[in-house]
């Protein structure tokens, strides 16, 4: 099969652009293209990127497919952001981009230039823990600790956003961070504690 369709990827990218440029694509051509495409194994695309993470600048060459989460965990050894689902369904990978809490598993690294990323590793000031980190220890806001960096990044944002007026509000605005250990008591308490400071 692969011999039969041994076209270059570039050929197809060019061809497809050309096809797309036509106002009218003959159905047969398009169908042929779609069929052939299934047998093409494109090479990976790597692009140079400048990203700023925890106020440190990195000049890297990244696969266009690389997510911020995998960039952090696999390439930069910043393993604080956790992979709990890889599909935006758990919140364990929560980091801040330009000060907003976002999911790093659904953020392509290629979209980062010009933005500032903050991960759990960038939250403390040297040895001085962030008040939210202190609160999580004091209130025992975790058990296994795997969702904790995401919870803390989310909690810091939750306080900043002002969603701390009641237990119910904290709970709602922390519901994007799953904790299978069920350490929700301590998470809520930690946020109340920091919000009151």
């Amino acid at each position: 099969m692969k011999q039969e369709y041994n076209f270059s990827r570039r050929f197809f990218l060019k061809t497809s652009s050309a096809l797309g440029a036509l106002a009218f694509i003959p159905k047969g051509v398009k169908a042929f293209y779609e069929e052939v495409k299934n047998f093409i194994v494109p090479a990976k695309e790597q692009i140079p990127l400048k990203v700023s993470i925890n106020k440190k600048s990195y000049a890297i060459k990244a696969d266009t497919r690389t997510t911020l989460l995998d960039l952090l965990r696999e390439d930069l050894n910043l393993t604080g952001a956790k992979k709990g689902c890889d599909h935006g369904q758990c919140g364990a990978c929560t980091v801040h981009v330009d000060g907003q809490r976002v999911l790093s598993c659904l953020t392509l690294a290629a979209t980062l230039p010009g933005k500032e990323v903050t991960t759990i590793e960038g939250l403390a000031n040297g040895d001085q823990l962030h008040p939210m980190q202190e609160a999580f220890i004091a209130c025992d806001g975790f058990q296994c600790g795997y969702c904790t960096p995401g919870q803390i990044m989310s909690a810091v944002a939750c306080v900043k956003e002002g969603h701390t007026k009641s237990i119910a509000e904290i709970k709602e605005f922390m519901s994007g961070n799953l904790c299978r250990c069920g350490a929700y008591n301590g998470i809520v308490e930690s946020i109340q504690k920091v919000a009151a400071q």
Partner: protein
Amino acid sequence: MRPFLFSKSSAANQALAKKNHSTQFIAGGTNLVDLMKKHIANPESLVDISSALPNKVENTTKGISIGAMMRNSATANDAIILAKFPLVAKAILAGASPQIRNMASAAGNLLQRTRCPYFYDVTTPCNKRQPGSGCSAINGENRMSAVAGYSEQCVAVHPSDLCVALAALDASVVVNDKDGKTQTIAFQDFHRLPGNTPQKDNNLPANALIRAIEIAANPFAKNNAYVKLRDRDSYAFALVSVAAALHLNGDKIVEARLASGGVAHKPWRWLAAEKYLKGKTANIANFEAAANIAIKDLKPLSHNGFKIPMLKGAIETALKQCLDL
């Protein structure tokens, strides 16, 4: 993910020039990246349009315009939205999580794809994912599936909350096509029913992009509600949801709007119920009657018969919440 080329455009026309059928735009990425990881979307190139489109809510002569790149949380916090169309904010806050709302764009929300579990499982047949392969849900686990407007081909529902509010408020979608032409599509005409082409979610022209969402001024800012029922309290897709809005004159209903998610392939308007409520007194008896009208002709599948009483309850609840009852 399949390898792809990546580029960024800072202007809409620049982005449109790069668009063809194997190129996809990426804005928030909350749905597209997920679909690419699952090998459901396999674009050959991505164009980042997050800097190419308006990201403000602006007053217009007719009402407001929500920029395509408005992030969902920004829209929900926007002063104009909160003052004039709070139903939009309520619907947004009922969906996804704070993190996803910080990422997801207004236009992307309209274009998100169904959450039918079979659509997401590439090892199972799905006409929406692979036309002609069959619908696994119609005789399978269809608890979350449609109760109206479906076809033999597809019983998926549209997952958005925002769109339910936009449908209720008769919004419209401003679209730019490749030739630089702008057209406006009424919200009710934007999303499609599955029919024989379930692979098509909406009527966005090929290689066009959404520039803005417009909502005309309306008298629904005071009495409105969004009710969403799901399998857990938060961060779950709707079993059913209801956007309700009333324009009252004293206790008389001048006009009512009712729309639902979790019902069909597109946000579903309950026009007959709205018509019934027009001119009636805003009271529980009339709300119940309206809810009964709404659910009259629904056709549940093997596992989602519960949606009928749930919709009835949700419509009544939403209407009551419009009055703070």
